[in-house]
């Protein structure tokens, strides 16, 4: 049987949405699904090394703020765990990188590649898609 597939598109820079999308991704990976995560727009900024080191994440409200206060594994740690324990890949958006003049080295070391929409559509073909 072919491995069931899930595609997650992270758009928002809000911690709550990054966290929800990454949580679903990591659990899906641990449950035997092939998971492809595409990170673009404001979400990409939250994966910059300087932003992660400073924990400078935008929050939408109370729950996000509590996540930063308590010792919760944040989105990038969840994605790392999903990679370790299954078939999960993370892709950065080439358009956003070009637009902002960012390099792969500016981002934390979690990205498998920087790709465009056409390449991602190929990977996402036939999968369930979640947009956050």
């Amino acid at each position, binding site marked *: 049987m072919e491995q069931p597939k899930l595609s997650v598109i992270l758009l928002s820079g809000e911690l709550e949405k990054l966290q929800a999308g990454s949580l679903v991704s*990591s659990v899906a990976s641990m*449950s035997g699904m092939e998971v492809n995560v595409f990170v673009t727009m404001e979400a990409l900024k939250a994966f910059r090394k300087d932003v992660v080191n400073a924990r400078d994440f935008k929050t939408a409200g109370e729950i996000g703020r509590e996540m930063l206060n*308590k010792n919760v594994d944040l989105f990038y740690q969840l994605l790392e765990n999903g990679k370790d324990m299954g078939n999960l890949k993370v892709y950065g958006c080439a358009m956003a990188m070009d637009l902002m003049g960012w390099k792969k080295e500016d981002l934390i070391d979690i990205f498998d590649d920087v790709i465009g929409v056409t390449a991602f559509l190929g990977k996402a073909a036939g999968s369930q898609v979640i947009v956050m």
Partner: protein
Amino acid sequence: MPEVMITKTIDARGSYCPGPLMELVKAIKRGQVGDVYELLSSDNGSAKDVPEWVNKMGHELVYCREDGDCWRIAVRKTK
């Protein structure tokens, strides 16, 4: 209840979803077929989520019970 030989107890108390599940998955991945892992979790979601994962992956749930302020969930690796 008959005695169950626990290979290892994983203390994930104080960790939030999906932390406890992740700890269990790590142990099962590294373990041998027949090993029994007991997970301690203070996250109430674990009591629902862990059995669901065990069922989906085809392992065996030995027990899932509340013990004071935490859950004790034992899983046998079957493959």
